[in-house]
């Protein structure tokens, strides 16, 4: 059977196991909650993780060539969350690689180099998105107070900042 067809046939099983493996990166008490509650507003991390994994997985077997931008968008929901949690960079995106073993075990055969390459592409897209989120956090951190307080003071003429032309 064609690998894509096998993936499609085992979609639910693979995604379920991938989800389990992903939430195991949290402490066990947390993982239990993330896996149990179905309402997306009572369990935003669990539902976002589920949603992202499904979207990414569907791209894996429905397309011959992966579109990096589309992949990043699909990963955004889960990676944006993991970027502000207690993960190292490798732990934050490492869940992607779990897919290789899961698929291998479920299909009971090595899915082939092409599949492995696709998973690697997903991991790279996840890392790209992770970095964008971190950069966004640093930017927000750097500009937040200035944007608020400083701007109001500036408008009132209480403070002033040198402009580019003053510095030249």
């Amino acid at each position, binding site marked *: 059977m064609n690998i894509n067809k096998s993936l499609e046939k085992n979609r639910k099983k693979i995604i379920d196991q991938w989800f389990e493996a992903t939430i195991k990166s949290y402490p066990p008490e947390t993982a239990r909650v*993330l896996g149990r509650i179905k309402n997306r507003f009572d369990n935003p991390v669990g539902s976002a993780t589920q949603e992202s994994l499904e979207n990414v997985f569907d791209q894996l077997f429905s397309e011959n060539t992966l579109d990096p931008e589309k992949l990043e968008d699909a990963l955004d929901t889960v990676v944006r969350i993991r970027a502000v949690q207690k993960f190292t960079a490798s732990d934050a995106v490492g869940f992607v690689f779990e897919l290789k073993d899961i698929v291998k075990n479920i299909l009971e055969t090595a899915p082939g180099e092409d599949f492995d390459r696709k998973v690697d592409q997903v991991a790279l897209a996840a890392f790209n998105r992770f970095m964008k989120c971190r950069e966004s956090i640093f930017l927000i951190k750097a500009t937040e107070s200035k944007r608020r307080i400083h701007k109001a003071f500036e408008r009132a003429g209480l403070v002033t900042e040198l402009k580019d032309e003053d510095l030249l």
Partner: protein
Amino acid sequence: MSDELKPDELLDKVDHTPASGSWMDTTVQIRPGIFSYAAKPDSLETLGAPNPRQWNPLDDDWQLPENWQEIIHNGIKERLEKFRTFKIFMDVCVRCGACADKCHFFLGTGDPLNMPVLRAELLRSVYRNDFTTAGKILAKIPGGQKLGGGRPMTVDVLKQWWYYFFQCTECRRCSVFCPYGIDTAEITIMGRELLNLLGLNIDWIATPVSNCYQTGNHLGIQPHAFKDMLDFFTEDIEEITGVNVAPQFNVKGADILFITPSGDVFADPGTYTCQGYMILFKYLKDKYDLNVTWSTYASEGGNFGFFTSHETMKRLNAKMYAEAKRLGVKWILGGECGHMWRVINQYMDTMNGPADFLEEPVNPITGTKFENAKSTKMVHITEFTADLIKHGKLELDKSRNSNRIMTFHDSCNPARGMGLLEEPRYCIKSVCDNFFEMPENTIREQTFCCGSGAGLNAGENIELRMAGALPRANAVKYVHDKFDVNTLGTICAIDRAALSTLCEYWVPEVEVYGVHELVGNALILPGEKKRTTDLRMEPLPGMEDEDE
């Protein structure tokens, strides 16, 4: 959770991946991005607070007083005798776990010690060990401490307290779900009060408290600068409307004293909400001769003393009544603020009251008695404005807000702390055509916190704030995706700042507005010129092509 978590088992098993072991044995890992900087000694000295010194939470040595354990022990003892709630909350919890998955910080960070039950256990375990007979007996038996859920007070325990009591915004969502009605926020309040006995505050709280105590507001802005800011807004509003709305300050014999958080005066986008108040007061002056005064002395509605200790809260709150008395006003009108309203509604009257020199608040224009404010003598501005709108006393042009597709974030303290649910919605619907609610388990009593309240809106703890904001942002994103919502209305100064940042990270298409900014846009001032822009100087709907 209730079917799964047996807290004693759970407490032993908490595994801090990648670290391992029980929370009772593990040294807390204080992580940059999560904790806030320590209080500066100068700020503690202003208030005569204990143990002012330069210290760093990442250092091993926190420079505690030699007898710190005795101070904490006596501190707990004193508070158990003084506050019945504290005693009950220490004893009554059956650790059913109903609160465990209700906290935005737990849901967002995934850290099990942010489950309200476990955060409370940090303190409760010491209480059990030191203050209960069972705990004292069990402590003598090998393994008895764990059996009784008690543990002795050590430096590591103290560090856990500090780390996790400053990861709680005292929002009280967990208490809504507690079958015993335990208010975990009060446990955090006590925990922080105890930490303050050792000089363990964070600077984002201590310095605003110090400024407020010395100068009158969180930023330490002096009266002339406070007035300068409002004068500047007056110029802006005149440019937009053609009407001079200059406010009056410190006027003796005015009808009403208006007090709002200083965030409205100094921080965007609260400044536009402030302009909304100014337009409203000018309208009421011209139409109904209502005389509202601002104060440069009581220039802060917020009260970060609430996040420090009961005593500090009382000291800061006192100036509201003192100023109302000095000016001889009839009653006090309060602006759009969050925790200020919990302090007023729940503490002010007993702390600094009775304010028998003030009148029971009556709206002089409509005759409505504000029964709920009968005792505190302080009325929320959305109640006041909703009453005016209900009686047809305001002339409004909704079309000026027609580009705003609204949803409303219930701020924790006005919603859960005083039950103010309908009035802000009524105001918004009266000045905007497009309004969509977020899902029901994320609004009203069940509202999710912004993740930055209770003094945690600092910059250095940005990861904590963004993680804590996730449940709220998740619901905002839902209404944005489904209904094209582009505006998040709110009635809290911290929210206006915090939600703007959370939207920037999670839902960048959504902007944050105070309710009175929308009212200010819609209100038709007597004698105004044709407006072409809103208060943010952005073109009004249909005016995009108008020249300046």
